[in-house]
């Protein structure tokens, strides 16, 4: 398998703090990579670098063989990398289905002229978007919330919606920052199931999580960060038994 995402010597400084320190890894197409590490290890910063929210201080990011280092977020997204945020980001006052429509916008071309003269292109894109919205509502199980403001639906449903919005643009790579964070233990199953079904669609996934048990069943490979440095990488079971990981993570291997 070829690497869909390749990160080389990625480094990011915040003042004197090295939040991400010379990190290398590859994500083969069609796989799920788990990223774990204690609080402040630099996991979210890593996603912000890949997604273009902040530029790296050093290092390179390749996506499908293309150097995307330093690209603005909207260009990264159009290239095929979608993401969710640690603190769930949604268009809160807008209805659930409108959130999904917005997620599709980058795949449509209708501009002011189309809108004012209601061109065939506008109608076609509107119908295509509607069809895709229906499909994703079904896929994420959010049909019954379709008309409600995104900010008013349950926390767990919001997490699924964030994934749904990301899927609307038909990405090749999906970055999920703690997709079950802030969700009660009993409610995580649906989200884990959803991530599994996303992979079945052939979408490559990178997922940040604290819950080791969840990672064990979900991830094909894992990367462990500590103080910005990659301290381990490999199959979940091996990583879990790695003494350096156990020490850094202050945890035992639960599997």
């Amino acid at each position, binding site marked *: 398998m070829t690497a869909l995402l390749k990160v080389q010597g990625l480094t990011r400084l915040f003042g004197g703090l090295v939040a991400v320190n010379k990190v290398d890894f590859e994500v083969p197409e069609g796989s799920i990579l788990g990223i774990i590490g204690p609080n402040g290890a630099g996991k979210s910063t890593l996603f912000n670098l890949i*997604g273009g*929210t902040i530029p790296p201080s050093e290092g390179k990011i390749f996506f499908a063989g293309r150097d995307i280092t330093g690209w*603005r*977020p*909207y260009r990264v*997204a*159009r290239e095929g990398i*979608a*993401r969710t*945020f640690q603190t769930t*980001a*949604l*268009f*809160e*006052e*807008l209805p659930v289905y*409108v959130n999904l*429509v*917005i*997620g599709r*916008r*980058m*795949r*449509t071309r*209708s*501009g*002011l002229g189309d*809108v*004012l003269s*209601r061109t065939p292109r*506008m109608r076609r*894109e*509107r119908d295509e*978007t509607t069809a895709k919205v229906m499909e994703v509502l079904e896929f994420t199980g959010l049909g019954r919330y379709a008309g409600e403001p995104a900010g008013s639906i349950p926390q767990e449903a919001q997490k699924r919606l964030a994934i749904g*919005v*990301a899927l*609307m*643009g038909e990405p090749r790579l999906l970055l999920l920052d703690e997709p079950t964070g802030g969700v009660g233990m009993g409610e995580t199953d649906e989200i884990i199931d959803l991530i599994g079904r996303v992979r079945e669609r052939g979408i490559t996934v990178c997922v940040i999580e604290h819950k080791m048990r969840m990672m064990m069943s979900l991830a094909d490979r894992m990367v462990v960060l500590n103080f910005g440095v990659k301290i381990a990488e490999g199959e979940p079971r091996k990583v879990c038994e790695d003494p350096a990981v156990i020490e850094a993570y202050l945890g035992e291997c639960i599997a």
Partner: protein
Amino acid sequence: MGKSGRYVKASALLILLGIAAALPWLLGKYQVRILTLAMAWTIATLSLNLILGYTGQASLAHGAFLGIGAYAFGIMVQRVGLNFWISLPLACVVTALLGLLVGLPSLRTKGPYFAIVTLCFNVIILKVFENWNWLSGGIQGQVVPRPAFLTQRWARYYFVLAFLLLTLVAMRLIVKSLLGVTLMSIRSNEDLAEAVGINSFRNKLLAFVISCFVVGLAGALLALENGQLDFTITNYLYSFYLLIYLLIGGVATLSGPVVGTIGLYFLLDYMKNIGIKGVEEFRYFLFGLILLLVIIFFPMGITGGVKRAWEWARGRFRKGEAGEVAG
């Protein structure tokens, strides 16, 4: 329910249109004139609504662009002697182009910084028009000749009404479309919008340029109705007037700007006429008071308040129905 709701809405709109068409024959001359001006101002409020209400960028330069549209039109018909039908759209285009020049640097700033930068631009434009007599015509200003078909008061009323309706239709097409949804995503969460592939700067710039085009139209129509203009039309106070009309009427709705602008315009004019002394100064106080009351009691503006009251009443009605069935 959805279908009958649409029926009610359509018939209400038709009745409103009928009333608007009949008004010149029901009202006195003076009132027709005030209503014509209020409708031109409504177009300006609608333009601010696009960039502030839907896109979330608080422009305080709309007073300047209103004046620029008015002067571009006035200069073309009077001093250049261009045809009326060329001058009117050209005035809008000139305003839009200036909007592009101003938007390019200023839309790089966000939130309150954008408001301050645009306000500064408005202050500069006022000073420019105040001091460059060759441009503004000095204190006397300049006349704005009217074409023969617009010499009658009622003709101008219908003319401005037609443009108001046109603006409303265009705005509705925009905000209900993929483009409108894109603008709202920037207002709602700009970082997320970028993360899903939306070029926020480009879309903000587009909204700003459209908005300037429309406010330029409003300025030209005001100049036309007044038959003359002077540098005070570029005053930044008008940026705040528009803001207040919009906030009181209800942001990010289409009826809000109409209700807010026409309602307040008539209220202020009425106060002036019943002879409240010093109303020019008093009206800022009144504006502040109204704004405060509306923000406290109707955070979504008058139309938002009416909508909530309607939903509340309907909820009670439904409950009553359900209660009867249960009992």
